[in-house]
Structures are given as structure tokens and as C-alpha cells.
């Protein structure tokens, strides 16, 4: 858990995605690791520059799907064979082909819910407070048309003066300190 007081990081604001990606790559080359980009739409190049390409969302989704499939199939088998056996036109009690359809639907239901809620949980949401919202210019642009790079204070290489000089070499609109 990072300290909840003092400076969170330095936030540089850019006009174009190209400038952001360039700055991110240079920051990584300079040895910064604890950093994050904020963009109004997904910029894949920024993720590449951050070396972030593995998400666990597909794994969560697959797990959910398998749980859904197994749950629905076993539930139907238990109901049809043991809990409430009914003779339907002389069919066997374990008439598994008929059980595939609800099992198929629950596979999709569970995996879909896992993908959506898994994404939300892995993102740490809902998180209504975040230090970057304290930056005066963040809300004006991050969800509309501006591109931000935040170098975080927890990075061992971070220093308020040196990092600021580093960020100011790029054509950033502004570089501001973000407090907790």
C-alpha cells in the first residue's frame, strides 16, 4: 500500500497519442517502471510501451464458463434422475442431450458475468477516489481529448525535480504534481 500522503506522482499532459507513446517509451528506457497512461480511448501502443500485455480476464472468463457448464449439467442430472424423476414419453431419466441446451446457456451466462465482473474487479473498480483526479487538468481532458502520462512517486528512480526536468523535455502541455 503506497503512503496516503504527500506526492503521488508527476502528471504530464499531451495533445496527441503519438507524443504520449513517445514519452512513455523514453520513460521506460530511462528506467521508470511505476507509471501509467491515461487516455480517452484504448491506445494499444501505450500498453506496449508500458510492457503491459497480459490480462487475466480471459482466464477468469474461462473458469466462470466451466463452472457454469458443470453446475447446470449436474443440476439437471440431479433433478431429472434423483430429485424429481418424471417419465416423459418413456425417455430415460438421464436424457442428457436435452440437458445440453440449459447447460450451454449457463456456460455463456457464467462466463459472461465472470468476464464483466472479473474485468471490474481486476481493475480495482469501483474506486471512486484516485489521486490523479486531484490534478486540476485531469478531468478536463482524460476522458475527452487529452493524453496523460503519470510517473509515480513510489518508483525508486522518482525525484520531484529530476523527473520534472525529464518530463519537460517532451512537448507536454503541462507537467503537474499530483497529491494524494
Amino acid at each position, binding site marked *: 500500500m503506497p503512503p496516503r500522503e504527500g506526492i503521488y506522482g508527476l502528471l504530464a499532459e499531451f495533445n496527441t497519442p503519438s507524443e504520449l507513446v513517445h514519452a512513455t517509451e523514453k520513460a521506460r528506457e530511462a528506467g521508470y517502471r511505476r507509471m*501509467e497512461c491515461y487516455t480517452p*480511448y484504448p*491506445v494499444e501502443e501505450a500498453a506496449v510501451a508500458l510492457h503491459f500485455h497480459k490480462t487475466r480476464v480471459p482466464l477468469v*472468463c474461462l473458469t466462470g464458463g466451466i463452472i457454469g457448464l458443470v453446475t447446470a449439467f449436474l443440476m439437471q442430472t440431479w433433478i431429472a434422475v434423483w430429485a424429481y424423476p418424471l417419465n416423459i414419453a418413456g425417455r430415460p431419466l438421464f436424457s442428457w442431450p436435452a440437458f445440453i*441446451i440449459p447447460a450451454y446457456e449457463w456456460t455463456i451466462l457464467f462466463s459472461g458475468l465472470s468476464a464483466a465482473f472479473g474485468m471490474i474487479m481486476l481493475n480495482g473498480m469501483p474506486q471512486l477516489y484516485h489521486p490523479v483526479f486531484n490534478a486540476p487538468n*485531469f478531468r478536463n481532458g482524460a476522458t475527452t481529448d487529452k493524453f496523460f502520462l503519470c510517473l509515480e512517486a513510489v518508483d525508486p528512480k522518482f525525484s520531484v525535480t529530476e523527473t520534472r526536468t525529464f518530463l519537460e523535455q517532451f512537448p507536454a502541455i503541462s507537467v503537474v504534481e499530483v497529491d494524494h
Partner: protein
Amino acid sequence: MATKGPLHDPARDPVVDPMIDPRTGEYAVIAPGHNFKSVTAKIADIVLTSNTPLGWFFGLMVAGGIATGVVIGCTWLFLKGVGIWGVTIPGAWGFAIINFVWWIGIGHAGTLISAILLLFKQTWRNSINRFAEAMTIFAVCCAGIFPLIHVGRPWLAYWLFPYPNTMNVWPQFRSPLAWDVFAVSTYATISVVFWYVGMIPDFGTLRDRAKMPFAKYMYGLAALGWRGSTRHWIRYESASLLLAGLSTPLVLSVHTVISFDFAVAALAGWHTTIFPPYFVAGAIYSGFAMVITLAIPIRKFYHLEDLVTLRHLDCMAKVMLGTGGIVAYGYSMEVFMSWYSASHWEFFMMWNRMFGPMGWAYWLLILTNIAIPLTTLWSRKLRVNVTYLFVLSFVVNIGMWFERFVIVVTSLYREYLPSSWGTYVATRWDYIIFIGTWGLFTFLFLGFVRFLPMIPMSEIRMMLPQTKVRRGGADAETVVEESL
């Protein structure tokens, strides 16, 4: 699709219309000259304005008035029972089932647009996908009413779900009606989740742009603290793609399962293997017609012609042409099989459908589903003619309603034993509840366009040329194509 080659020679025939891309001669997906700020403002201001257009209030009033039909109709139904409807024996499935299938079908285009077209990387869909998804959800709401009130004792409708109870009674999983419960409830849930996930970044935008504290608060809650972080975006994109991949088999399965309600029954006219694909194609056909019905007035009323362009209408009309063709094939195969099967019952069913007492309904559906759309939609001029498409979308939806009417009613009222033949006459309560659902649908949709972002802002931003990332900052020459 026509080849994308040099269709158009700019030297010979200079393009006057700014909406036409001079290189291809195609209509642009987004009008030129937009940037991140302008598209965001255009869409967000519809929601965040403090000046609600008077026309919206008027529309809401009319739709709400019509929607009371559902309330009044259902109240009377609960007091008196399903006897107030025209359902009898042998016509035990009347308007309720027809309307259910029709509304669910309408919803399917929304999922097709949001899921299947995403997987096929049809980026033009970005402008229309949000309100098509909303249409799906509201259509499923309207559809869901019917089977619930059709069960006779709607206060016991929860018995359809497998839950432990003191009676020790469980659903019967060999029945397609039980499959329906799973298919439709999954469809409704996943559609809502997909819709909401899609809106999270846009809620962030609305939170940051809202002036009213209450709006800021509500959109802030809905945004869950979205801040556009790149790591979030990657997980978000991954989840969206997975949801699209899951919704695709889901949407195909839902109408397939609904068609099983018919196809599994041993009744001439229902007992056929062509039903699943032909129901799905028909569902998408009517759904696209409904998207056009909604898109045309909305783009006009909210001046969204820059974002929902003629290109979208053209593409949707092409999808209708394709799915309409599958529907036409389904109809002709039904006729062929009733002859080729050499079954007396099948042959009589088809003869009765065409020339029996309700033959007019069959010819009406051939006229509205096949004869009018499938002859005219080949013309590009008509595909981009807004008035024509608007009228045509109503024609197709009437036709698709009659398709379900023909399937349900004309198969049932002339069944195997002539001694049990009857007829089907809908009562005023059938009409009141059905027309009421149109009002309910419109009412919900008007609420949606007022309070939620009806076009996904983040996805529209991705379609702008400014998203291209140039290597080495802004100065370098090499352009890396944004993979969309």
C-alpha cells in the same frame, strides 16, 4: 460487397457531396472534420443539456399514454384470467406467443451489431451499437412480459426457475419451454451486462463534463471511478471482446431455442428442422428494420447526421437484404418440403396456409417480407433514401409479425382432427396489451436517449484519423496504422 477498387474517378466526376469519400466513392462513416472534442461534445451534450427539447416531452407523453395499455390490460387479465384473450382450443397460442417471438426477434439485431459485427471488425457499427443494444434490452423487456402473463397464473411464474422449495417440485428439463427460460433469462442478463460495460468509459466522460452536482454524482457512481488508465483499457477491451464472443453464440441460440418451442411439437407446420436458422435470420431481419426505424428519427431530431451517416443506413439495408434472402429461402423450403415430404398433413397445412380462411395473412407476409424489400433494396439509390428506408422498416416489421402469426395460428387452428378445427379471433385485450408494449418500448427508449450516451463516445474517438500513432513522437514520418 462490391470491390473497393477505383470505383470512382475524381477527375471525371468531381465529388460535390462532402460526405462521399473521394477515393472510394463510398459514403464516409463519420463526416470529415471531427476531432475528439467535437464528437464528445456532440454526444455528451444531448445528455447533459439543461434544455430538454419539447419534442422529447411530447414523445414521452404519447408513449407513456400508450404504455398504460400494458398496465390496464394486465390488470384486467390478472383479475379475469386468460379467458379475456382470443386463445381457445385448438388455437391455444395466440397474440402472447406471437408478440413474444416478434419482440425477442427485434432484439437480436442489437446483439448482432454489438457482438458479431465487432468480431468481424466492422467499425461502422460503432455509431449505432449503443442504441441498438438499448433496443435489444427494451425489446426483451417487452417480450418477457408475454410468456409470464401467458402462463395463466403469473404470480407463480417463478416456478419456472429451478429453486429449492418445500413442495419438492422441480422444472422438467426435457421441455423446450424450460430451455426458453434459461435462454431468454441469460440473454437478458448478458445483454444488460454488455451494455453497461460498454457504457462505463462514457459514464466517466459524462461525470467529468456534467455541471449539475446531481448528474455528476450519479454518473460518477455509474462510472465506478473510470479514469482511462491504459491497464484498465486493456482489460476492458479484453472483456468486451470476450463478451462479444459469448454473445454471438448466445444470440444464435436464443431464437434457435424459441424455434424449438415450435419445432419439437409434432404439429404440421411446426415440426420442421429449418426453423432454427430461419427464425434466427428472420429475427435479425426484423431487428435491423427496427434499428432503422429508430435511427432515422433520432439522427434527424438530435442532428446526428455526422455520426449516423448514410453509410450506416446503406450497410443496414444490405444486412436486411442478406437476411431477407435467407428468410425467403426458408419460406420456399417450407413450401417445397410440404410437397416433397409426400405427407398428407404437411400438404394440407401449406394449402390451408395459402388458400384457407386466413390465406390473406400468408400473402400479406410474402408481400411485406419478400416482394417489397427484396426487390427494391438492391438499388443503392433506395438504400440511401431516408424516407424510403423508414417506410420500408415498418413494412418489414409488419411482415415479420405476420410471419409469426401465420406460423402460430394457421398451424394450430387446422390440426389433425377436423372435428377439433376452430378459428382464432383476437379480442380487444389482445390488441390493447400488444399496442401497449409499443408504447412501453418507445417510453423506455426515450428515457435512454435522454439520460444515457446513445452513441459510444470512446468507440467513435477510435474511428477518427487522429488516433494514428506516429513512431518517435509527432515529428517522425513513419505511420503505424492503428489496428481497429
